[in-house]
C-alpha cells in the first residue's frame, strides 16, 4: 500500500485546529503557575516571568479541595462499578439469550439513552428525598447510574454481539457452565469494550455538574465540579489562579487514564459513539 503523500495545506489546517483546541488547556496550566500580579497584565504574556506553585499549596492546604477530590473519586468509582457490573451482565443477556421482551428491553434502553438526562432531575430528587438519601453521595451514584447505564448497556451489547457464538459453544462443550463460559470467553473478548465503557462512565461521572448541583449542597458531599465552583466563583469575584490550579488537578486523573488506556477508548468510539 502506498503511503499518502505529504500535504502541507492539510497539515497546516490540522495543526491550526489542534492548537485552537489545545490552547485553552495550555493557558489553564500556565495561568495556574503565574503569580497573581501577572494574570491581568497588558500586553498579554503567554509564559510566566516567575513560576509559582503557591496556588496549588493554597488549594490543598487552605481549602476543602481534597475533600471534594475524594468525593469525586468515590462517586466516579462507585458509579463505574455499579454501571459496569449491571451493564456487562445485561449486555450479555441482550446479546446472547432469547426470551420474550428482549427486543422491547433493548428498545427501551435505546429510548432512555436518547432522552436528555436533565428531564429526570426533579423526579429523581423527590425520590431521593422520599428514600432519605438527599444530600448524600449515594443519591448521586443512583442518579448517575440512571443515565450512564443505558449508554453502557447499549455499547456493551454491541461489543458482545460481535463475539462469535461458537467460542461460547466451545466452552460449554468443553465443560464450562454458562457463568464459566462468560468468565472464560466473553469477558476476555469483551475486555476492550468493557474498559472503554468503564472509561466513558468514569469520565461522565467525574465531569457531571447539574445533578451534583441539585442533589448535594454541603462541603462534605460536594464533588469537585460543584465544590470548586462554589468555593471559587461568586457573583462578585472569581479566584482565577486557584480556579486554574483546581482545573489542572481535576484533569490529572483523566489525563492519566487517557495516557494508559487511549487505545480502548478509540475502539469504544467506533462501537457506540459518545453521549454528549
Amino acid at each position, binding site marked *: 500500500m502506498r503511503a499518502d503523500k505529504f500535504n502541507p495545506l492539510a497539515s497546516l489546517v490540522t495543526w491550526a485546529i489542534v492548537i485552537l483546541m489545545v490552547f485553552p488547556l495550555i493557558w489553564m496550566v500556565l495561568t495556574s503557575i503565574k503569580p497573581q500580579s501577572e494574570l491581568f497584565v497588558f500586553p498579554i504574556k503567554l509564559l510566566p516571568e516567575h513560576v509559582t506553585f503557591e496556588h496549588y499549596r493554597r488549594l490543598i492546604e487552605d481549602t476543602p479541595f481534597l475533600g471534594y477530590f475524594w468525593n469525586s473519586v468515590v462517586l466516579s468509582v462507585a458509579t463505574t462499578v455499579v454501571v459496569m457490573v449491571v451493564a456487562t451482565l445485561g449486555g450479555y443477556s441482550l446479546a446472547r439469550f432469547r426470551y420474550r421482551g428482549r427486543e422491547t428491553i433493548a428498545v427501551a434502553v435505546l429510548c432512555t439513552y436518547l432522552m436528555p438526562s436533565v428531564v429526570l432531575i426533579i423526579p429523581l430528587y423527590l425520590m431521593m428525598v422520599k428514600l432519605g438519601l438527599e444530600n448524600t453521595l449515594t443519591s448521586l451514584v443512583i442518579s448517575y447510574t440512571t443515565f450512564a447505564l443505558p449508554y453502557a448497556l447499549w455499547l456493551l451489547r454491541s461489543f458482545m454481539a460481535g463475539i*462469535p457464538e*461458537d467460542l461460547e459453544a*466451545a466452552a460449554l*462443550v*468443553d465443560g*464450562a457452565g454458562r457463568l*464459566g463460559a462468560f468468565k472464560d*470467553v466473553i469477558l*476476555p*473478548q469483551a475486555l476492550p469494550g468493557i474498559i472503554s465503557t468503564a472509561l466513558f462512565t468514569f469520565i461522565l461521572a467525574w465531569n457531571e455538574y447539574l445533578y451534583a448541583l441539585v442533589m448535594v449542597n454541603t462541603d462534605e458531599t460536594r464533588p469537585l465540579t460543584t465544590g470548586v465552583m462554589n468555593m471559587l466563583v461568586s457573583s462578585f469575584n472569581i479566584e482565577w489562579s486557584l480556579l486554574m490550579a483546581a482545573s489542572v488537578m481535576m484533569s490529572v486523573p483523566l489525563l492519566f487514564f487517557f495516557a494508559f488506556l487511549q487505545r480502548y477508548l478509540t475502539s469504544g468510539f467506533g462501537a457506540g459513539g459518545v453521549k454528549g
Partner: protein
Amino acid sequence: MAAVSFKNVRKVFGETISIPSLDLDIRDGEFVCLLGPSGCGKTTTLRMLAGLEQPTSGTIHIGGQEVHELPPAKRDIAMVFQSYALYPHLTVAENIVYPLRKRGVPKSEWPAMLANIAQLLQLEPLLARKPKQLSGGQQQRVALGRALIRKPKVFLLDEPLSNLDAKLRAHMRAELIELHRRIGTTTVYVTHDQLEAMTMSTRIAVMNGGVLQQFATPDEIYYRPANLFVAGFIGTPAMSLIDGDLQRDDNGFVVRAGGLLLRLPHSTLRHDAVHEVTVGLRPEDIVLGRGANSARIKVVEPTGHESIVLMECGGATLCTRIASDVPLAAELRAGQDVPFDVTLAHTHVFCRQSGLRQNRDDTKVTAIKRTRDAA
C-alpha cells in the same frame, strides 16, 4: 466410545419446523456423516446431539443414557466447529488443556496428556503460539487436539474442512480417516461435500428439508439411492434424470423416457412398479460411440484426464464422461450427433410422484462394483 440414537426427535424454531421427526441409530465406533444441502437440518441435528440446541420433542441417547435434557458439559462429547472456535486469548497449549481444567482433571496429569496429543497431531512447535499466529490447517489440528485430549464417548465435527483450500482439505481428510482408524471413537461428521462423506464414512445419513432420506454405506448410497433426491445429490457429475412411462409386458418392462427406449428384465424392477417414472442414469452408464440411441452434443467440458459431455436426447439432457485417451474424445464437438448405449443393468427407476426407488436390488452392491470394474 458409545452408540448414539435419535428417537422421534423433532425441532421447531418459532413457526418453522426444522426437523419433523428424526430416527437415527449410530453404532458404537462408526464414522457417520450427516450429508445434505444447506438448510437441510444436519447442523441442527449435530447441535442437538451436542446439547447446544434442545429438541422440541423426542429423545437422544448416548451410550444408552438419555441425554437430551443434559447440558453439553455432562454429555461426554467433544466438538470441532467449522470456525474451530479456538480461544484467541489462550495459547495453543492452554486451548488444548482447557477441557481438562473445566472437568477437574488433576493438573499433574495435564503435561503427559498434552504431550501425547501434541505428538499425535504434530503440534509440539506450536504450543506457545496464539491462534492468530497459526495457519488454517494448524488451527484445525489444535481444535482436533482440544477435542481428543479427554477421550470423549462421541466426536462431533461440524464441517471442519470447509475453510481449508482444496489441497489441504484432501490432506486433512486422509488424516481424519487415519485418526478414526487409530482411536475408533464414534464420530458424527456434518458436511455438504459428498466427496468427504463418501471417502470418510462408515455410513452416510443423507438429509433434505429436515427429513432423513437414506442412511446407508457409501456404496449403498451411490449404487442404490433410495429416492430421487439422493440419486440427484450423490455423484459428480450428477445422475441424469429423465421423466418417462413404464409399461409391463411378457418379456419385462419397457421404459420410454425422453428419446430413450429401454427394455428391462422382470428381475430389475419391483412387481408393483408404478407407471409414471423417472429414469436415472449415472454418467459412467452412458457409453458414447456405439448403440442404437442418438443424442446431440450440447457442451464438451475437458477436465484433464476425461471430458464431461452434456447432450440432448428427445428433450432430455444427459450427462456422460469419456476418457481423454479415447480417439472419439478428440472428435466431439457441440452440435454433433453421436450414438450412445445405456448399461441397462445399472439403470435406476424412481416413482415420479413419490420419488421412491422402484428397482428390486437383488444383486449385491459388491457384485455391481465388480461388473463395473470389469467393464
